[in-house]
């Protein structure tokens, strides 16, 4: 963790509950969850399948709205900010299934996201190429249609797309699921760097215990409830 980073509460999930109806029965996914996410910390959310990890992430990134409770960004309900505006300005998402635009090249996918989010970088193309190279995509690969790239390469493009946007909150759903171990470590290193050196709040949903161990805080979801464990007590206390 770099010096001079001030940790303050960026995102707060307050009394969040989420359920769906199945054959007229209410099925609880999340029940009365209260978690704060701060700047400069790398969080992992772990739990068994069906524990509500992806729903948790969808609520945190305003892709969905809770049935009860509120999601606050810097103390303000994201509904008041506007869900679209929130996704546009304050959060970057890395999807498990990449969610790239198939008719574009890797580079175009990244620059398109930068343009949509109004990225402040003057030379968007150069910055996008730099980020793509940082996640292991060569300049040549960057100019290929994304469908010609492998699953792992598409995931890197998806990560580069999230990194290129200027959001303070980065949420990722199994970002290393399709990557080899070396690249996965590199990606985790980049995410840590973003949290520790650039003061971003990084929230990663994962099954990978190795990633969970390298994160600062682990949020463990089980049967709709949660427990929070700190791997980096020094940083949390400070």
């Amino acid at each position: 963790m770099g010096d001079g980073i001030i940790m303050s509460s960026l995102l707060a999930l307050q009394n969040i509950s989420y359920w769906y109806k199945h054959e007229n029965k209410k099925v609880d996914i999340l029940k009365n969850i209260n978690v704060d996410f701060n700047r400069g910390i790398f969080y992992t959310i772990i739990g068994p399948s069906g524990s509500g990890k992806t729903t948790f992430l969808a609520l945190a990134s305003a892709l969905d709205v809770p049935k009860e409770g509120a999601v606050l960004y810097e103390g303000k309900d994201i509904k008041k900010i506007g869900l679209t505006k929130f996704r546009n300005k304050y959060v970057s998402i890395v999807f498990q299934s990449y969610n790239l635009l198939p008719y574009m090249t890797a580079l175009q996918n990244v620059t398109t996201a930068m343009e949509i989010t109004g990225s402040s970088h003057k030379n968007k193309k150069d910055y996008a190429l730099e980020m793509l190279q940082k996640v292991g995509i060569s300049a040549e690969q960057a100019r290929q249609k994304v469908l010609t790239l492998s699953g792992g390469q598409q995931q890197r493009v998806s990560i580069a797309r999230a990194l290129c946007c200027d959001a303070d909150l980065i949420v990722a759903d199994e970002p290393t699921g399709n990557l080899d171990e070396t690249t996965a470590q590199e990606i985790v290193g980049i995410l840590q760097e973003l949290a520790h050196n650039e003061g971003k709040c990084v929230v990663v949903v994962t099954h990978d215990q190795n990633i969970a161990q390298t994160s600062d805080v682990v949020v463990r979801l089980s049967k709709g409830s949660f427990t929070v464990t700190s791997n980096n007590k020094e940083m949390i206390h400070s």
Partner: protein
Amino acid sequence: MNFLKRAFLSVKARKGKSLLQIFVFSVICVLVLAGLSIQTAAKKSSDLARKQLGADVTLQVDMEKLREQMQSESSEDGGRAKFQSTPIDVEAAEELTTYDQIKGYNFYSSTTGLASSFDPIENSTSTSTEEETESTEGASRMGGGMAQGDVSLQGVTFTDSYTDFLDSTSEIVDGEHLTDEDIGKNVAVIEQTLAEDNDLQVGDTITVTNPQDDSISIELEIKGIYATTSTGSDQAMDFTAMIPYNKIYVPYTAASELKGADYEGTIDSATYYIDDPADMEAFVAQAKSESSIDFDTFKLDANDDLYQQMVGPIENVASFSKNIVYLVSIAGAIILGLIVMMSIRERKYEMGVLLALGEQRWKLAGQFIIEILVVAILSLGIATVSGNAVASQVSDQLLNQEIASSETTSTPESFRGGGFGKGMTTTAASTASVETIDELDVSATGKDLGLLAMIGALIAVISALLPSLSVLRLQPKTILSKQD
């Protein structure tokens, strides 16, 4: 303007679908443009025809009302119905000549007279008859006891616009036509055969007497001599006055004078010539509201038969092409809408991704509209290049069908199957005195292209907007999770 860039990228990337959309849109545009061009050409042609032909309105006694009046009078008296002519006051007829729509007029007053200072042309059978009835001094008697003259006097204002001169049946061979300057003068234009038989020349005078009252006679100075090709009808040959050579044109004032004092300042009928048949109704309406003419007795008969005959087929084609425009526009919008809808539904995933990235919904709709507008612009280009050729072909085809159809319907039943009916002369058999417009100069005008662009844009926007609305109301998570 990121969504513009995305739209162009998408059109380029989806070549197959874009080409299909361009093809469908081009077909729609070509048909709409063909319809619009045909409409414009038909309007242009009918305007031209209208201005070339003009129309005429005749002021005359309303025979229908006169018949009703006669019947009611006869039932009151208990006797037979008697026809009584009702002349028109010249001053009233003159009021209408000042109206803006009028380009010309002619007043008519006709009667018969007895040739006093010359011999009328007689047919071979009438010679013996007249010798036998010498005591009547040339006047033949009708069944009702009415004396009939041996020359007919056609009172007019202008001879050059009289039907026989207009259709070149008669032509001036010496002297001059009668004009409005001759009104009040006792002048005449006589037929060449009559002049030659009587050694008459321009400047000579002839005397004509009222057949019923020999105290009324007028002396007419010959102002012109005409030759006629009219042979008259068989029935006319029984009456000397009806022989075409015995027709004498005089100013209507002279004809009225010969009829007697009761007819002074009156005419039988008046014809008004109008530049544009479209003004005909306005003229009649103005006459009815402003003039002093008694429309209980008289009526204004509008005649635009020639115009209707000439433009009938093209107006039908124009009307048909208007229906084509409506039909193709609506059907095209539906077909294109379905294609775009299918394409947009396939692109739900893309919309989910863009919404997840924080793209605004209106920009997504904008992207789809721009994509279809790109297709529309390319299709408009294709339509502009090929539209004229298609429009010409379609209009020729439609016009030929219409002409064939109008010829069939305007030909009497007895004409069909070859020869003419019994006793029908070739003159009577000719069905038209003007040629029907059988060709349209179809070419797309700037206005047509502008209208096509508007219709195309409307179709594009509707076909893109409606299907995208159904998808855009969804939350990105719903879209993406269904995709997964």
